């Protein structure tokens, strides 16, 4: 921590908030308290400026124009790809595939890798705490190939039961697709251990990194994971852009996912040959400016330092957990030993939707519902929870506002 501070200076959250124009907004006349970062994070001026600058000064279609602007746009997009490669410490630029978001990344792997590799009886291993986007694509390919889905359970704290997971990894396991951090519970999953176990039986591993990349430095080479996906909009970047990392050898062996322009080498009506990586998987005109914005977001995070961000958020999570635990009738859902900055809870006798509605009137944005993770809700026998998820710009005062808001809720719903 001290070395970090020496390198970057103290973590000045007030100054950092100034980088995010939307945080100055008021909701129902109250200051915005944005605690829904797990759903989508707000954008710093650096990202907004990069998007505007791209459209104003270096916009054209990429990868094929001979003219000046096309080259500028291509350079900007490919420079973003390099930033993503550095961010994940991938070996090669062309291991970074730009997609619309994690959902598309998982669908791509399930459809392309899955169709080429899965046979009847082959097993896909998931966990109870997967987001629907890491369940449904696998069910779709299961139904097409005759593969089987197995599910590793979680315990009452929301931690993965590693002995069960180890037992479920067997000779028929072909793919282990797990989240790095649970979006509904905040649980940090020991993915390095899972990857080792999966590789020991020859299975491939896909990591859903949506909730992890804003908090945890990721090194795909050190992890040795086969695929890693994340969405730009949760990383303070634009919506509509995301990343699929895949090991080059795997991606090269996979058939294309979508056909179209950009992804071909030659086309005749008899036969088409495909472009090399990464273009084989980027059919059509890509989200050029989205990629540029994502690159700017990664640069911005780098300027703050991800470990410092993580330390700040960890402190907020601990403070919020302590303050909420002290309230009557609050039940915190998800108490795994290692958590990212996500706090899911219920309040006895009040529906989460009602809680969210009252907090909203106080200017506090939280997520309520099943968080697109219905199996998690079923595991805890809950219809829904309230989820406060913290980002790099949140403060202790905002936690205090949340606690005061919950007191309001209790006041309104006292029977």
């Amino acid at each position: 921590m001290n070395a970090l501070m020496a390198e970057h200076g103290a973590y000045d959250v007030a100054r950092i908030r100034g980088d995010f124009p939307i945080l100055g907004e008021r909701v129902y006349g109250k200051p915005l308290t944005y605690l829904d970062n797990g759903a989508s994070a707000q954008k710093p001026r650096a990202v907004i400026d990069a998007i505007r600058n791209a459209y104003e000064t270096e916009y054209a279609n990429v990868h094929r124009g001979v003219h000046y602007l096309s080259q500028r746009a291509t350079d900007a997009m490919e420079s973003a790809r390099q930033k993503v490669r550095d961010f994940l410490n991938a070996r090669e630029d062309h291991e970074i595939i730009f997609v619309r978001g994690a959902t598309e990344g998982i669908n791509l792997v399930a459809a392309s890798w899955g169709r080429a590799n899965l046979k009847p009886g082959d097993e896909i291993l998931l966990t109870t705490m997967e987001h629907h986007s890491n369940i449904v694509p696998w069910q779709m390919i299961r139904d097409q190939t005759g593969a089987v889905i197995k599910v590793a359970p979680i315990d009452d704290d929301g931690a993965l039961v590693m002995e069960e997971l180890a037992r479920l990894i067997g000779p028929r396991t072909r793919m282990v697709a797990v989240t790095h951090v649970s979006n509904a519970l905040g649980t940090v999953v020991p993915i390095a251990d899972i990857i080792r176990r999966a590789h020991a039986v020859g299975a491939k591993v896909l990591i859903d990194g949506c909730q992890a990349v804003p908090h945890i430095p990721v090194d795909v080479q050190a992890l040795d994971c086969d695929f890693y996906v994340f969405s730009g909009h949760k990383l303070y970047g634009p919506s509509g852009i995301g990343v699929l990392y895949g090991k080059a050898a795997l991606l090269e062996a996979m058939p294309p996912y979508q056909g179209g322009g950009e992804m071909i080498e030659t086309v005749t009506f008899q036969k088409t040959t495909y472009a090399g990586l990464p273009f084989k998987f980027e059919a059509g005109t890509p989200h050029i400016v989205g990629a540029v914005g994502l690159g700017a977001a990664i640069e911005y995070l780098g300027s703050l330092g991800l470990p410092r961000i993580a330390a700040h958020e960890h402190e907020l999570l601990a403070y919020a957990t302590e303050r909420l635990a002290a309230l009557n009738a609050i039940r915190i859902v998800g108490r795994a030993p290692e958590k990212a900055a996500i706090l899911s809870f219920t309040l006895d006798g009040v529906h989460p939707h009602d809680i969210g509605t009252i907090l909203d009137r106080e200017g506090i944005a939280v997520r309520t519902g099943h968080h697109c993770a219905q199996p998690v809700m079923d595991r805890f026998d809950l219809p829904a929870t309230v989820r406060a998820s913290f980002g790099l710009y949140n403060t202790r005062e905002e936690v205090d506002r949340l606690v005061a808001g919950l007191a309001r809720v209790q006041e309104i719903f006292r029977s």
Partner: protein
Amino acid sequence: MTDSASIQDEIRRIVDEFAIFDDWMGRYEYLVDIGRALPALAEARRQDSHRVPGCQSKVWFHARREGERIVYEADSDALIVKGLIALLLRVYSGRRPEDILATPTDFLAEIDLGSHLTGSRANGLHAMIRRIKAYAAAFAADRAAAAVDPAALA
């Protein structure tokens, strides 16, 4: 007094009841009280087959004919939504289909609970309003068809 006049009276009463409160918290507390006072739907009707698809809270809905009128019953597991349901039932339940179809839901905006609450697709209210109207339209069409059906005349 005609039926449509009594619908307008009910709407006026609702708007007046909420006008007493000068802050949002009072209005919400009152809405929660209204929700609590609405009897729960019988267990047999709190089933998935009676669910109105809504993302966040559950809403159950049932309609039946009583002579020329339609009686609606509904329930929710979230109290604020249930309060809003109770208001809808006061206005629309036990009315004639043509009066139901002729009455817009603007009054919800008038009581100032936050436009996005009453306009939100997330709470199932939207879907329930659509069903109230659809049921009334179907009943009206059915009756019109029955009126010219020779079998019905015989």
